[in-house]
C-alpha cells in the first residue's frame, strides 16, 4: 500500500539514484541518443525532491500530481512528458485506491504509452515498466528481475525515440530511459512499498 510517507521515500530514493548516476545515464544516451538523459533526469528529479520535501501532502494522489507537474516542467526532452504522463496517470489511479500498487504502476505504463505510442520491445523505458508490472503481478519484483529487464534492452533494435536513427547500430547498447526506470523500481524495492 502506498502512503504519503513511503511514496515520498520512494521518489527521494529514486532522485538520489539518478543524482549518483547522472554521468552514467548521459553516457548511455550519448551512445545511442544525444547525451542529455542524465542531466534531464537530474534536473527534474532534483526539482521534484525539493518540492516533495517542502510540501505537506494530504494524499498520495496529490503527491504524484505535484511530482508529475514538476517533472513535466523541468525535465524536457522525451523523458519529461513520459515520466510526467506516468505520474499523472498514477495520481489519477491513486485517487481511486492506494492499496493496489500493481494497478497504479499499470496506470503509469498506460500513461507513458498513450503519450509516446511505444509498444513493448521497441527499446524504451516501456520495456522496464512492463516487465516490472509483470513482476509485481506475480510478486516477483526483485533487484534481479529489474536488472534483467534493463539488461534485456541491450539486445533490442530501437524503433522509437532518438536511438531509432541508429537502426541496427542501436543493438548492443542499454536504453538510457530503461536504465533510469530501473532506478525507479529499485527505489521502490528499497522503500518497502511491496511486501
Amino acid at each position, binding site marked *: 500500500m502506498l502512503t504519503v510517507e513511503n511514496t515520498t521515500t520512494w521518489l527521494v530514493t529514486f532522485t538520489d539514484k539518478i543524482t549518483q548516476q547522472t554521468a552514467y545515464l548521459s553516457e548511455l544516451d550519448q551512445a545511442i541518443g*544525444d547525451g542529455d538523459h542524465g*542531466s534531464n533526469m537530474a534536473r527534474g528529479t532534483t526539482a521534484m525532491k525539493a518540492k516533495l520535501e517542502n510540501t505537506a501532502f494530504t494524499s498520495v494522489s496529490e503527491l504524484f500530481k505535484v511530482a508529475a507537474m514538476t517533472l*513535466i*516542467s523541468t525535465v*524536457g526532452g*522525451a523523458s*519529461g*512528458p513520459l515520466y510526467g504522463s506516468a505520474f499523472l496517470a498514477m495520481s489519477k489511479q491513486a485517487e481511486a485506491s492506494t492499496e493496489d500498487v500493481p494497478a497504479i504502476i499499470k496506470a503509469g505504463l498506460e500513461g507513458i504509452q498513450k503519450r509516446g505510442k511505444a509498444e513493448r520491445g521497441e527499446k524504451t523505458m516501456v520495456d522496464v515498466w512492463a516487465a516490472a508490472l509483470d513482476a509485481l503481478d506475480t510478486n516477483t519484483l526483485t533487484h534481479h528481475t529489474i536488472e534483467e529487464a534493463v539488461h534485456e534492452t541491450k539486445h533490442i533494435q530501437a524503433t*522509437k525515440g532518438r536511438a531509432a536513427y541508429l*537502426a541496427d547500430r542501436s543493438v548492443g547498447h542499454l536504453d538510457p530511459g530503461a536504465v533510469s526506470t530501473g532506478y525507479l523500481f529499485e527505489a521502490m524495492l528499497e522503500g518497502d512499498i511491496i511486501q
Partner: protein
Amino acid sequence: MKKIMNQPKDVLNDMLEGFCYTHEDLVSRINDTGVICRKFVDQGKVALVSGGGSGHEPSHAGYVGQGMLSAAVCGEVFTSPTPDQILEAIKQADQGAGVLLIVKNYTGDIMNFEMAQELAEMEGISVEHIVVNDDISLEPRQKSDRRGVAGTVFVHKILGAAAENGATLSQLKNMGNDIVTHMATLGVSLLPATVPEVGKPGFDLAEDELEFGIGIHGEPGYRREQLKPSKGIAQELVSQLKSELQWEKGEHIAVLVNGLGATPLMEQFIFMNDVQSMLQEEALVVDYKKVGNYMTAIDMAGVSLTILRLADADWKTYLQHPVQTPAPF
C-alpha cells in the same frame, strides 16, 4: 572542451540574457523562462510559435520579430522545452486569431508541444501545430520519422510573412504542411559538436573522414567517407536531394546553404559555388538563396543544403518579404 562560458548548467540562461540584452529593441524574455517574445505585436494576426532545444543559434529566438515568429521557446541545450513554457509562449503570443506551433520532428519536441497545445486548448486558445521533417538522411525509414532541420527557417519565413499578410490559422497550417512536402535537407559533418553539460564531443570522426546525413544534434548519418573536395560533397547532396524531390528542368526553387556552427563563411561560399554549378546543370531556376549560419548544431563543423520547390508563387514573395528580427534573414 574549449568554450567561452561559465558553469555548463548556466549556459542557457547566460546566453538568453546576452541575447536579450543585445537585441533589447526587438525582443524580451518572459522572466525565469526560455520564452523569447517580440516587442511589437501584430494585433489580430495569427501568431507563430516555434522552439526546441537550444544550441541551434540563431534559431529559434533569432527569428522572433516582425514578419517571422511571435515567440520562441528555448529549451536546455539539445533538449526540448517543457509544456509549461510552451504554454506561456502561446498565451503571450496569442492575439485572438490563434497560434500555430512550428515543431521539428523529434519525439521530445512533439510530445512537449502536444501537451502544451492540449493545455492551451483547455484555456480556450485556438492552437494548431505543424511538424517539419525535412531531413532526408535516413532514406529507408518512414517519412514520418524524419528529423526536422534547417528547412525549418524557410517555414518560419514564409508563414511569418503570410501571417503578417492576414492568413488564417487553418490557411497557415495548410501552407506549412504544403511547404514541408516540397522541401528536403541533407547535411554533412566534418567535426562533432560538444554539448556543454556533457563536456566531450558527441561522436568521433577520424581526421580524414566526413559523415553524410548527420543530424543537428549529432544523430547518425547515412554514410561515412574519406574527406572529399567541396565539389564532391555538393554532388552527393544535390543528387540525394534530386532523387527525393524529383525535380524537372525549369522548376523554380529556393536554396539554403546552412553552416553548422564552426564552419566559416569562406567554406560555405565555396560550397555554394559548387552547388550553384550543379543546379545550373539541372536547369533549375533559383529564385531565392541564402548562405550562412541559420540552424546550427553548437560547434559542429559542416554544412547542410536545403532545397525548397517553389510550388506556390506566393512563397517566393513571402521569402523576400522584409523582416525585423535579431538574426538577419
